[in-house]
């Protein structure tokens, strides 16, 4: 009846191998998109790939064997150690490189101990040298050139995008696919723009609207929906490595959800991408920044924080800064800057020094890997607190000369309450006597008769010291002395017993300039620590001391410093100033403890120049990134959007536009889009997305044929629409939506939907998963509490990352564990049962109608006869099973109703269909 399985297996393995071979031959990118046999040899297109594949590892940024490197032209043309020149432009015969590539002796022939280059490759190199060995610049570093879409003869093409794609298809004798049916199209665009399937009502409305522009109106409705911001925020959260915990061993919680809410609002308001960029990288450095702009800088406070006992805070502060460098270059420039951490970049024109010049931009923020995650911006919610803050602002303002200065001063005092920077942390102290920096938390703790030093404190203009402390006793005294433990006493603090942390403030005698300060601790006759100090801070007393109300204002100031009720803290960026600034050095071999030469902030020479009028800080860097001269930013973000829509980018390697990344499949389209994005859409993401989803390319049916599949398995040519498995968040959200469970509540601290017991057995951590109640159990996936070492399992199984580091592209897998989630996870069972109830509400009599309705609610289209029959047969068999096992029905649904149990099984099957899990 059928051929034996083993023979099928063998035949298919052989054909599989053949297919792989054929595909490989057909699809090396250069061949497919450019063709090899043009007369003019182009460096980037023809030569650089050969060099990167065969030469660069020994003759590049890392190693320069025999004194020869192919990374920069000046190095490549110079004589190498032997005194000979590897490349003599115009003269292949004189070029040592060609001689060694062709050498007959395998012990001499290049590449050493590797397969020789093909004749074709060598002759390409020869022709290149003969033509003058022009060093072409890598395509991605040349700013996009204005280009008009090609003219194609087709009614199909409705936009510039279509013309570019169509030409690519026609060049290969292919035709685009017809437009997808309207239901499929609406489902696709709804997922792509909002992450959710359309509701039945939305679908009905769309199907009934047969006037022109119906699709466009649907697109505009989706772009205007609040769900749009949620969906795109969750995309950005992978890049921002957003999580609700700090990572590493302890992986304690972190309050940073206000940043997530900022993202949702920014996307919904369609904040232009250039502004979106500047606020996240440097919102704190904008003039008179708003709270929102400061919270935006939490983007780079999503770095991990190591609270493990015995770790060196400076080491992990450095690690966080390095992560900021890597993430910034990845997100905005698709450049693997981190490759230049220990040596010049292997493939790209980036020198090791460039890495540390980038590092210098990020090396002067106040964060220091401390357990508190400081600096945190305190957002007060209580009326009394907000009034108190306002009172302080007014008080300072009315006592300061000059409007601008008054406003500046007032802001400084408000910031002193809300940010309390610059802090001197416990682990900044040294020269300890009878004291310690606690190895678990880096606090300063000193016994009676002991002291601790902090060096080079600039006390100019300060007459008060703030300190955050705790202590078990009232008897201690701490003195502040200058120069030595026996130096002049400039301040005295009577320790008060304090169980939790408290911020106290004492007067100190004003001093000029820098001093080494000693804190000396006294509590004669008592063992143990006099006090534990988290940080200290020097500042100037509020003005108006002479006024009778002063005491009241000061009291309010102190009260607000210690207020915690309804205060939300968010880690943010605060730039260090003056004496607090750190110098930046190259780390020899990437080792943070071995400092090389000092560097200043700057950008690689291969990219657009840093304009002189930009400040030498994060704000300058951010503005440079979004300047129209930057060749990468617009291309990179447009490519990210494209990738989300089609499943594959115009540049496939979304996070590497360097010479080792893949070449663009449609380079002119990419440039055209990048220029449109900047010039026509004014950096509007919504406009850009609108342009893409309105194109005929996007609207194509995703059906494919074996021929097309063989020719273009990854759909780079776009002769068909995208067909891709939904993302983790979409899978959950869809299940909740079609079952009617999904909550539309937005914003706020992260929630804990149901997950299996006992997953959170973290080390030394009191954190617990406490399942949320009410509608918080059914929120969209992006609100789920994201613990880095143990993220929500059903999301992870569908390839959501742990968010420990920036992830540009999720790897799309197809595993048995995913099947177990959608079949058996109680969350999905609950959704199935709710869908079953909805099915029954449609028609209480006809099973056929119920099943048809269930399919329609899930898939938004009618089931065909085959599907319907198969589902009905499943229903019949299941019904029989539950009739015979009534207790099983109750076990499944909690109700004796066998019909409900049966429909639940059918609904669960529907929600496991490939078409349900796929955007097509």
């Amino acid at each position: 009846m059928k051929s034996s399985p083993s023979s099928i297996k063998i035949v298919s393995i052989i054909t599989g191998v053949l297919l792989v071979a054929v595909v490989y031959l057909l699809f090396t990118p250069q061949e497919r998109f450019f063709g090899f046999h043009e007369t003019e040899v182009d460096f980037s297109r023809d030569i650089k790939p050969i060099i990167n594949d065969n030469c660069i590892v020994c003759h590049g940024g890392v190693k320069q064997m025999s004194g020869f490197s192919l990374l920069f032209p000046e190095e490549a043309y110079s004589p190498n150690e032997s005194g000979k020149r590897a490349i003599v432009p115009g003269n292949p015969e004189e070029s040592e490189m060609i001689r060694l590539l062709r050498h007959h002796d395998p012990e001499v022939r290049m590449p050493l101990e590797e397969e020789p280059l093909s004749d074709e490759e060598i002759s390409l190199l020869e022709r290149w040298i003969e033509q003058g060995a022009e060093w072409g610049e890598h395509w991605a570093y040349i700013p996009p050139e204005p280009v008009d879409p090609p003219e194609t003869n087709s009614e199909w093409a409705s936009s510039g995008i279509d013309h570019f794609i169509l030409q690519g298809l026609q060049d290969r004798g292919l035709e685009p696919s017809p437009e997808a049916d309207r239901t499929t199209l609406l489902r696709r665009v709804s997922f792509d723009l909002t992450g959710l399937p359309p509701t039945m009502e939305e679908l009905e409305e769309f199907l009934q609207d047969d006037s022109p522009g119906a699709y466009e109106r649907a697109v505009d409705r989706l772009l205007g929906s609040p769900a749009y911001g949620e969906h795109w925020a969750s995309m950005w959260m992978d890049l921002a490595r957003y999580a609700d915990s700090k990572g590493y061993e302890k992986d304690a919680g972190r309050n940073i959800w206000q940043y997530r809410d900022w993202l949702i609002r920014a996307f919904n308001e369609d904040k232009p991408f250039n502004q979106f960029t500047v606020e996240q990288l440097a919102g704190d450095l904008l003039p008179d920044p708003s709270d929102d702009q400061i919270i935006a800088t939490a983007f780079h406070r999503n770095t991990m924080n190591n609270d493990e006992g015995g770790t060196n805070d400076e080491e992990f502060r450095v690690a966080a800064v390095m992560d900021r460098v890597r993430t910034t270059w990845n997100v905005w420039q698709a450049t693997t800057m981190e490759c230049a951490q220990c040596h010049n970049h292997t493939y790209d024109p980036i020198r090791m020094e460039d890495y540390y010049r980038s590092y210098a931009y990020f090396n002067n923020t106040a964060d220091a890997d401390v357990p508190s995650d400081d600096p945190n911006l305190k957002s007060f919610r209580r009326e009394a607190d907000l009034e108190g803050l306002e009172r302080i602002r007014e008080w300072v303002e009315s006592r300061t000369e000059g409007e601008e200065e008054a406003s500046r001063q007032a802001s400084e005092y408000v910031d002193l309450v809300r940010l309390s920077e610059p802090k001197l942390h416990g682990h900044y102290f040294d020269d300890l006597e009878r004291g310690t920096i606690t190895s678990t938390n880096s606090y300063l703790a000193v016994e009676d008769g002991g002291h601790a030093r902090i060096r080079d404190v600039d006390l100019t203009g300060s007459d008060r010291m703030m300190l955050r402390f705790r202590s078990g006793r009232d008897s201690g005294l701490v003195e502040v002395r200058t120069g030595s433990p026996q130096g002049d006493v400039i301040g005295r603090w009577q320790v008060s017993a304090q169980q939790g942390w408290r911020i106290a403030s004492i007067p100190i005698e004003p001093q000029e300039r820098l001093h080494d300060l000693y804190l000396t601790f006294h509590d004669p006759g008592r063992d143990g620590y006099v006090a534990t100090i988290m940080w200290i801070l020097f500042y100037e007393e509020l003005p108006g001391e002479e006024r009778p109300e002063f005491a009241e204002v000061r009291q309010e100031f102190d009260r607000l410093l210690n207020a915690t009720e309804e205060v939300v803290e968010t880690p943010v960026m605060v730039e260090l100033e003056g004496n607090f600034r750190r110098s930046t050095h190259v780390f020899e071999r990437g080792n943070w403890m071995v400092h090389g030469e000092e560097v200043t902030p700057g950008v690689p020479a291969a990219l657009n120049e840093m304009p002189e009028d930009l400040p030498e800080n994060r704000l300058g860097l951010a503005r440079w990134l979004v300047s129209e001269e930057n060749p990468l930013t617009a291309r990179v973000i447009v490519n990210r959007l494209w990738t989300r829509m089609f499943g594959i980018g115009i540049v496939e390697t979304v996070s590497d536009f360097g010479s080792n990344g893949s070449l663009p499949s449609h380079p002119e389209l990419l440039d055209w889009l990048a220029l449109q994005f900047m010039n026509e859409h004014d950096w509007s993401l919504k406009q850009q997305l609108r342009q893409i989803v309105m194109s005929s390319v996007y609207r194509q049916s995703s059906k494919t044929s074996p021929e097309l599949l063989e020719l273009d398995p990854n759909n780079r040519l776009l002769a068909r629409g995208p067909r891709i498995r939904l993302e983790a968040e979409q899978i959950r959200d869809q299940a909740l939506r079609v079952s009617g469970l999904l909550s539309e509540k937005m914003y706020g601290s992260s929630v804990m939907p149901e997950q299996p017991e006992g997953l959170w057995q973290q080390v030394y951590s009191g954190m617990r998963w406490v399942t949320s109640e009410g509608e918080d159990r059914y929120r969209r996936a992006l609100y789920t509490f994201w613990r880095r070492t143990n993220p929500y399992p059903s999301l992870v199984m569908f390839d959501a990352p742990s968010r420990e580091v920036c992830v540009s592209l999720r790897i799309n897998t197809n595993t048995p564990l995913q099947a177990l989630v959608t079949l058996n996870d109680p969350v999905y069972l609950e959704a199935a049962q709710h869908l079953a109830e909805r099915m029954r509400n449609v028609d209480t009599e006809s099973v056929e109608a119920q099943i048809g309705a269930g399919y329609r609610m899930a898939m938004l289209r009618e089931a065909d006869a085959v599907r319907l029959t198969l589902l009905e047969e499943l229903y019949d068999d299941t019904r029989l099973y539950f009739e015979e096992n009534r207790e099983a029905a109750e076990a499944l649904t909690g109700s004796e109703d066998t019909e409900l149990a049966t429909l639940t099984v059918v609904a669960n099957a529907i929600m496991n269909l490939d078409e349900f899990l796929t955007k097509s």
Partner: protein
Amino acid sequence: MTIFEELIYRNAERQSRKHFIKQCSLGLGGLAMAAMTGCSPFSSPGGNRDAITGRDPFAPKPPHFAPKAKRVIYLHMAGAPSQLELFDYKPELHKLHGQDAPPSLMEGKEFAFIRGIPKMMGPQARFEPRGESGIMVSDLLPHFSTIVDDVSIIKSMHTDEFNHAPAQLLTLTGHTQLGHPSMGSWITYGLGSENDNLPGFMVLLSGGQMPSAGKSAWSSGFIPSIYQGVQCRTDGGDPVLYASNPDGVDRQLRRRAVDAINEINRKEFSETGDPEILTRISQYEMAYRMQASVPEVMDISGEPDYIHEMYGTEPGKTSFANNCLLARRLAEKDVRFIQLFDWGWDSHGTDESTAIDAGFREKCRHVDQPMTALVKDLKQRGMLEETLVVWGGEFGRTPMQENRDGQDMPYLGRDHHTEAYTIWMAGGGIKGGFTYGETDEIGFAGIKDRVHVHDLQATILHQMGLDHERLTHFHQGRDFRLTDVHGEVVKGILA
């Protein structure tokens, strides 16, 4: 249409609804039969595993050269056990007990918790030569002492990191930063799996605390997530998350539902031509098989009494002993990489449970018998030769007594130490009754045949038939490997 495509189509056709319904849907009685006869080519017992799609990432792949071992059982003692109380016998240190550490020893060194000048601390155990080889092992490991002639002990291990999380990452992923594939992921990525019904890389925890590195210790990093370790829980919940059917749904009903799902998916494939659908069909079959095979392999209650006595196992509990027995059972099923984590080895002496002379002894008592039983059991089944067993922590412990934050400690403890520690290996082409490497008189640092963690990784890969320099994955612009840019096979311990 290529032959390949034609085959897919023909198969889809063959599985048309009529055929399927006639053959399989004979009511409930027919359901079980459908599963047993393998009416669909995807559900045949033993698994036809994706031959039809040619896309199976777990299909066995040829090694780089002839392997000595087919699988690895890696016993990681998270927290890092003291080598000085177990394997690295230092009578000289005994004489120095209680004296201040010489400043020259401390110079330029950084420790996690030791501050100022600590005191030296002699071995808190008695050592004796064991077995025919006469290898010195302390009396804290009486069972292990009986198998020294089957193991190689490496005394000169060293690493770069003295905090748990980064050191565990370095040991298991070759890098201190997160996001790199773990050893088990690399090996299943390189060799595939020989079991159709179980994941190729499985992880078992003794209960208590997670290892400090968390799930990153068995993450697949930047290689496809299908290669990440699958954590099997033994605490009464699902051994593999969501493997149990919901209450009220039995295996037959599940079979029936999976058949309906797959049948509609085949229809979908015939309409859209997307081969990813075929993969999904086979993954649903694999999921269905795992639902049976995982609980089956995880159920140790059917093991004979003498085995339970040998391991010291108690069915139903979560313990290292149970996990050792489970490791053997998974090895029998050809699971490629079996990773066990024990916990509580961080013997700082801050309280009784972390005291070298109290809690640490207790830990030894808990692992000694089962880890010994595992080696013996593999040997008596003729499996030791092809199974590489590795035991060790993420670093060692100081010969000095810990003085946390410069203060005296209530119990005897040792701080984290990177310069010297001990691991042992057995089976899989490793010498028996052999010690490798030496440390100085007080056990502070290796002085002969030092072995870095990257060397250990290179050696494990080598025994599996993989060249650590050739097992690479292209990521962010370059090839990455388990051993970063380091690692040399420790030839001295190879049999």
